[in-house]
């Protein structure tokens, strides 16, 4: 039931943000497109100052998330899938930033959304983490019964869980990314860690390359990976903290 509430919450946020941000984005894109073509028609008179202004205009557009490619601006990023992914990045506190609300209402909504979403996310991650721990302890008990190993079983299971988690969440996903995104393995690994630790620079974001086609299951699988990977990494970090304290 917690999971249902979590997913429902994300969906709601996505819908609202899309409604708030899409119109502003379309407007800004049209404005930039007009400027772009105006400039081209006047290019014979292009001088240093005009070039400067052009560059500044492009930088400004880029910062608000619009890039010019060919005849049209890049596909709208506040479509439902993009907004959903944005909601995830907000309540998990990853906060990539490649997409961020530019309208005042969008921002206020973002704050309120995160205010309730972040605790919700923490509770869910805690639950998943506890389930993982229970699973590990259960396996350890089973091993103790079968092999009569006593203390060693717990240690063995914990290392096993660590290694499986490492493989599943940090070492194998970069292979998927290098296939679907064209990143190198190190880049994929860097992206995986930066995402799961919720740092989320936004220099690498999945599914943002306009030259590539992504299968329909891609973003959903990634969202699941983020959820479970974060829970796992949180457990690992809690473990490190216990050592430090």
């Amino acid at each position, binding site marked *: 039931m917690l999971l249902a509430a979590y997913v429902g919450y994300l969906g709601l946020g996505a819908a609202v943000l899309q409604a708030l941000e899409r119109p502003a984005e379309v407007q800004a894109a049209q404005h930039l497109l007009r400027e772009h073509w105006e400039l081209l028609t006047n290019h014979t008179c292009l001088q240093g100052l005009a070039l400067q202004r052009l560059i500044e205009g492009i*930088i400004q557009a*880029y910062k608000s998330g619009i890039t010019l490619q060919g005849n049209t601006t890049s596909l709208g990023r506040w479509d439902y899938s993009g907004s959903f992914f944005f909601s995830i990045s907000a309540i998990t506190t990853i906060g990539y930033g490649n997409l961020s609300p530019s309208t005042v209402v969008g921002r206020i909504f973002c*704050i309120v959304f995160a205010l309730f979403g972040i605790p919700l996310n923490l509770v869910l991650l805690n639950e998943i983490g506890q389930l993982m721990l229970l699973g590990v302890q259960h396996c350890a008990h089973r091993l103790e019964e079968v092999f009569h190993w006593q203390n060693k079983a717990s240690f063995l299971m914990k290392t096993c869980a660590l290694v499986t988690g490492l493989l599943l969440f940090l070492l194998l996903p970069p292979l998927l990314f290098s296939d679907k995104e064209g990143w190198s393995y190190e880049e994929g690994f*860097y992206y995986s860690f930066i995402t799961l630790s*919720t740092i*989320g620079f936004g*220099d690498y974001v999945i599914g943002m390359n306009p030259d590539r086609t992504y299968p329909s299951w891609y973003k959903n699988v990634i969202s699941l990976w983020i959820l479970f990977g974060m829970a796992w990494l949180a457990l690992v970090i809690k473990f490190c903290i216990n050592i*430090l304290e």
Partner: protein
Amino acid sequence: RAMCSGKLQTALLVAGYFVYLLVGAAVFQALERTAERQEKMAAAQMKEAFLQNFTQLTVAEMEQFMKNLIEAIQNGVYPVGNESQFEESNWDFSNSFFFAGTVVSTIGYGTLHPKTVGGQIFCVFFALFGIPLNIVFLHRVGKMLSLLCKKLGKFLYEKGMRKKKIKFLTLLFFLATGILVFLCLPSVFFQITEGWSYSEGIYFAFITLSTIGFGDYVVGKQSDRKYFSYYRVLVAIWIIFGLAWIALLFNL
């Protein structure tokens, strides 16, 4: 004796925390600076080449120029201004230190990020040890803050108030002063130093302290403004105490 070792532990922790950030900043700087220099030169050359050819500009060339420009921007290099901007670097020590801070606090604005493979891998391991360190550090800071609350509680108890009422009042006090000191006052401060509107300041404060850190607003990044010398240190202190306050809030 126990109190002495507790204080020593705290002192060591604080010292360790800052040493960790300093070392990280130095390493990031060393790894990223040369790559940045190369990017800058390439962007300047591109601009030069463009200017020489603009009389015969075609649509295709314009597209190519835009593409190159956007790539340069994505790498954090803005080809505006003149040669003097070669001297300023995104990876000077102050920026690298601030960057290291955004990594261990998991805020991760992203306006500055490592582009070399070495920098990225180092970043991963730096964060792996830095994040637990940061959390432990924030716990200690949080304990200091909660001591203040306990003192208030004691004061009220001696005045003869009931325990339940004390709990409620201290919680309210904690919440209210926190919102004032960490959200409202900084937004006013940013209005002056950054020229943002009040709502932009609140948005920035919230996004930062929740560690979401989109990076659409970052302090000290506007090239046409003058910041007084300890500006970012002040902001860092605000972030540390604000984060500790939020962490305490979650534990309550």
